[in-house]
C-alpha cells in the first residue's frame, strides 16, 4: 500500500478545486470563464475518482475508466458550448452574461 501522500490530501485539494469552480461559475461575468469554471469542477471530480481508486480499491480500474469518460465528455461539452458562445457573440457583440438577458422572469 502507498506510504506517500495520504488520501485526505487529495480529497481536500479536490474539494477546494471543486468549490473554486462553483465560486467562479456564480461570480464570473464572461461566458468563457464560466465554462472554465465548469471544467475546473469536472477536473476536481476526476482527481477524486482517481484518488479513491488508487487508495481504496487498487485492484480494480472502475475509477480510472470513469475519469477517462469524464474527460471525453467534458471535451465535447466544451466544444458545443464554445460553438454556442461564438453564436452569442455574433448576435450580441459581447460574451458578457449581463448583456445576454433578453429573456427574464
Amino acid at each position, binding site marked *: 500500500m502507498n506510504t506517500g501522500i495520504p488520501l485526505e490530501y487529495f480529497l481536500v485539494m479536490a474539494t477546494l478545486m471543486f468549490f473554486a469552480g462553483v465560486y467562479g461559475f456564480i461570480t464570473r461575468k464572461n461566458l468563457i470563464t464560466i465554462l472554465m469554471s465548469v471544467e475546473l*469542477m469536472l477536473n476536481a471530480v476526476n482527481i477524486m475518482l482517481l484518488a479513491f481508486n488508487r487508495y481504496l480499491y487498487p485492484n480494480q480500474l472502475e*475509477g480510472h475508466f470513469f475519469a477517462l469518460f469524464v474527460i471525453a465528455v467534458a471535451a465535447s461539452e466544451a466544444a458545443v*458550448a464554445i*460553438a454556442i458562445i461564438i453564436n452569442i457573440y455574433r448576435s*450580441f457583440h459581447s460574451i458578457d452574461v449581463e448583456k445576454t438577458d433578453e429573456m*427574464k422572469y
Partner: protein
Amino acid sequence: MNLDNFLLMRHELVLTIITLIVLIADLSIKEDKKQRIIPIAIFLFGVNAIIGFFPVVTGNLFGNMYKISDLQCTMKNVLNIGVFIILLQSVEWLKSTDNKLKISEFYLLIFSTLIGMQFMISAGSFLMLYLGLELATIPMAALAAYDKSRSTSAEAGVKLILSAAMSSAVLLLGITFIYGTTGSTYFDVVSLKFSNNPLQTLAFILFFSGMAFKISLVPFHLWTADVYEGSPVNVTSYLSVISKGASAFILIIVLFSVFNSISMIWKPLMYIISVLTMTIGNLFAIRQQNMKRFLAFSSIAQAGFILLGIIGANGVGMTSVIYFIFIYIFSNLGAFGVVSVIYYKTKKENMDDYDGLYLTNPKLSLVMMLALFSLAGIPPVAGFFGKFFLFTAAATSGYYWLVFIAVLNATISLYYYLLVVKAMFINKSDNPIAYFKTDAPAKAALIMCVVGIFFIGFLSVIYSYMASISYGI
C-alpha cells in the same frame, strides 16, 4: 457473448442505424432538394417505433452495464411515440427557408438525444447513466440554439449548456462519493452497500440535485422558463415532454432499485420538493403572458405531481408515474402542437393574440381546450386518470396532507389553464388571428393527440399492463 445478445439493445441499435442513414442520405442529396430528407426521416423513425413494440427478451449486456426488461422497453416505447408526434409537428417549421440547409441536423440531433435517453433508461451502472445523460444533454443545447438568426435562441442554448454542465458536475461529485464509499458504480453492488451514513447521504443528495435539474424541480428550475421561451417551439415541446419524461423514468428506477435502503431519507426530501415545485410552478404560471413560458411553468408544476407517485414508493407509484407521463405526452404535445402551428403561420405566441381564436379557427381552439383540460385533470379526458392514480399512489402510503396540497394545486392550475380557454372562446378581439389551413402532418399529429387524450383513460389494458411490470420497494 454472441451476436444475438446485441439484439437485446435493439431500440438503440435501430435508432443508431437510422441516424447514420439520415446522415448519409443528407450527404447524397443536392442542396436545393434537402426537403426530401423529411419524409425519409419520419418514415424510418416510424419503423423504429414499430420495431420497439416487438416482444422483448429480458437480459443484460456488457457485464450488467446495460439492462433491459419489459419495464425499460415500455418506457422507451412511450418516448418513441412522443418523438414521432413531435417529428410530425415540426415538418412545417423545417420547410421554412431559414432551415433550408440544416434540415437533417435537426433529425441527427434529436435522434442522438433520444439514443442517450434510451441508454440512460437501460443503465445498469452509474457510468452508463452519466454517459446517457450527457448524450441526451449536449445535443439538446445545440437544438435549443438551432435558430441561428434569432438571438433568443442562442441565449437559450448557452443557458442550457452552462447550467446543464454545472448540474452534471454536481451529479458527478455525487457519483464519485458513491464510488468512494461503496467501491463500485454498478447498481446491484451499490444497492447492497448503501446505508444512511453521512457521506453516503451527501452523495445521494448531490446525485439527486443533478437529476432534479433535468426534471426541473424547484429549486433547480431557474433555467427552465428562459430556455423554453428561447428555443424553437418544437424543441421546447421535446424538452418539456421527452427529456423530462426520460429523466423522471431513470430517477424512479434509481430511487427504487439503488437507493431503496435510504428511503426514509429521500421521502421527506421528496415531500418538501414536491410541495415547493407544485406551488411555485403554479404561482409563476398565473402571471405569464408568453404561451411558451406559460407552458414551461405549467410543466414545472406537473413535475411536482410526478413526485407524488415516486414518494408513494409502491408498485402503484411506479405504474402511475409511467401512466401519467404517457398521458402527459399526448396532452402537452396537443397544447404545444397548437402553439407551434399558430406561431409558424402568424409569428404570434402571446396569450392576448389568442383572443377570439374560436371564431376564426374553431378546430384548433377545441384541440387546445381539450389538451389544457387534460393537463388540468378534468374528468372525462385522460389527464384526470393520470392525476387520479398519482394521488392514489401517495394516499396508499398515507400521505394525506400531501394529496390535499396537490388537490389544492390542481385547482389553482385549473384557473390559469382556463385563462387561455377564456381568451380563445370569450374574449373579443379587434384583430383576431385570421383563418388558416393547418398543414397535413401537424393535423395528423394533433388528431393523434386528441385520440390519445380521449381514449387512453378508458383503455384499462394500458394501465393493467403497466401495473404488471412495475415494482415497489
